[in-house]
């Protein structure tokens, strides 16, 4: 059975363009605003939606996404609400793939089987769990595959030709190439090395390769879209949320619009 992610990449390939994958943290700055942001993303130009599941100790994230997670948690976000957000989004959009991204502990505590069942029924298509490398596939990756949810792996500049087969084993949906050595939202990707690495990884996988970590502008997105099948934008959107907040940290009338107009802008980059 082909899933939404596979269908979406196939569709875009026909159109001859890369996918724009947008990341925002679920429940940032609060549940209602987050829902409005997410509902408007496809229209603004997002092809695939990633929700970050907030965690207190996001060891692979930079200050922007760390802060977004804490904003969401302070506003009362929980795992149940992460899934509810997906369900509410899915009620109005049957086709846009939704990927949940985060860390293992909140899933483990929720219960792996229960999580997979609830995620599937909410309309989740894929999972990216940062602290589950292939060495820990028994934990969630293999059960996810059984539950018909894509387990999307991160490949990094340290994924050399020797390591690549291990990383791509049991991966489905797409491959997320982390374009920089480091955490989210800090360094800018070196476009030449991105292209070189994407082409190198293609020797190991037929899956679409999306590139992220550090993509902030339409120009960067356009350049990456030339060699990759998808461009992921995260910290820039999350920072746009932060910059739109009132002094008291509450959403303002500009919050939803700020995210959507940045997504539209970057989408033009990806599509040009």
């Amino acid at each position, binding site marked *: 059975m082909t899933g939404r992610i596979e269908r979406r990449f196939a569709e875009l390939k026909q159109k001859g363009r890369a996918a724009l994958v947008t990341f925002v943290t679920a429940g940032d700055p609060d549940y209602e605003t987050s829902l409005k942001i997410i509902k408007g993303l496809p229209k603004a130009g997002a092809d695939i939606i990633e929700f970050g599941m907030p*965690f*207190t*100790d*996001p*060891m*692979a994230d*930079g*200050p922007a996404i*760390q802060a977004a997670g*804490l904003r969401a*948690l302070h506003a009362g976000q*929980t*795992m149940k609400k992460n899934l509810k957000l997906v369900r509410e989004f899915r009620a109005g959009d049957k086709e846009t793939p939704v990927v949940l991204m985060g*860390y*293992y*502990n*909140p*899933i*483990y*505590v*929720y219960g792996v089987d229960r999580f997979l069942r609830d995620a599937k029924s909410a309309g989740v298509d894929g999972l990216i769990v*940062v*602290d*589950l*490398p*292939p*060495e*820990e596939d028994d934990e969630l990756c293999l059960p996810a595959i059984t539950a018909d949810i894509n387990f999307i*792996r*991160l*490949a*990094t*500049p*340290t*994924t*050399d030709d020797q*390591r690549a087969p291990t*990383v791509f084993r049991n991966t489905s949906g797409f491959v997320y190439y*982390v374009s920089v*050595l*480091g*955490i989210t939202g*800090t*360094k800018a990707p070196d476009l030449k090395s991105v292209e070189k690495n994407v082409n190198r990884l293609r020797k190991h996988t037929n899956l679409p390769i999306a590139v992220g970590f550090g993509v902030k502008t339409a120009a960067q997105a356009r350049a990456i879209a030339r060699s990759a099948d998808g461009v992921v934008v995260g910290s820039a959107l999350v920072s746009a949320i932060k910059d739109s907040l009132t002094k008291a940290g509450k959403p303002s009338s500009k919050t939803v619009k700020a995210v959507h107009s940045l997504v539209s802008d970057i989408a033009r980059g990806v599509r040009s």
Partner: protein
Amino acid sequence: MTTAQVNSYRTGPDEKGLFGIYGGRFVAETLMPLILELEQAYKDAKADPSFQAELDSFLEHYVGRPSPLYYAERLTEHLGGAKIYFKRDELNHTGAHKINNVMGQILLARRMGKKRIIAETGAGQHGVATATACARFGLECIVYMGSVDIERQKPNVFRMKLLGAEVVPALSGSRTLKDALNEALRDWVANVEDTFYCIGTVAGPHPYPEMVRDFQSVIGIETKRQMLAREGRLPDTLVAAIGGGSNAMGLFHPFLDDKDVEIIGVEAAGLGLRTRKHAASITGGRPGILHGNRTYLLMDDDGQITEGHSISAGLDYPGIGPEHSWLHDMKRVQYVAATDKEALAAFQLCCRLEGIIPALEPSHALAHVMKIAPTKPKDHLMVMNMCGRGDKDIFTVADILGVKL
């Protein structure tokens, strides 16, 4: 959770880095090749007699080992029960057990050709030990420390700077030890080429819990030899304080298969286990995944990590080494807790009776000794790990006692 009998408690971890269900390698993909490289390098070093010989030489001439096993006569008389010994790791160079592990890891880093060392620290003792070894070998040293801890452990911050280390405040989350660990991991992900991460306790992804345990086991190995020489037999009870669990594991591990030796780890109960203001991961937490391993953690019902609290910055960690979690489930080691107040009373008693100013961390172990020693017969041999000296804590203690320095 199994409590089935095992032939030996000393064979873990398995090749996946697991002690029962605990441990493992829960890290970002960027770090995976580095962790595999470290595992191999450590295996090779362990098999190389010249590595152990070099380490032994530094432990003797630089750290000052073996540390004495001291009969605490006046404390024994005062408590009126068990015969109490202190394993005096507070006499080590830099004032705590932390240097045992650091010497091992830094010699390994040198073997691996790494020039840049990063570390996390809570009380500052591991940071000071790392800065010390880096100065000794001319290595660049960056220490991450929660900004809250920087405030309460000023003397150690200055010490690290004198030794040439850069101290970087961790400003995220609760701004204590767990956040310093997060920051160190973030640094490592960004600097994979030249950087060695020197973890300060028996936590983190495999192979750290095993490696740090091995380097700290010198404590228990010496204790065994010294006790046999002094008393002609093994001790009856071992007691040690637990933050991440390295000084405790170092004392315990060589005794795990000596069935008659009772072993007790003391966690920090802070303001009390019922207040949530504590750092007792086993007594007050449950299994989860943080900092590369599965272990007992302090967290809320939604899997969000909660802040630990303890009067002692070195115990203020919401997790515990995975091997301890396993030993708890197997019921081989008993885990208990002591409050801030009890630790403070033990701290003062030790100063007055033994002329030893203990660190606040082993003061927790001492607090438990004060509870159980009176219930034991006079020929009961009890060893407490005096894993650090209290010079770093006098400001905290003065503050609590209302004394202006």
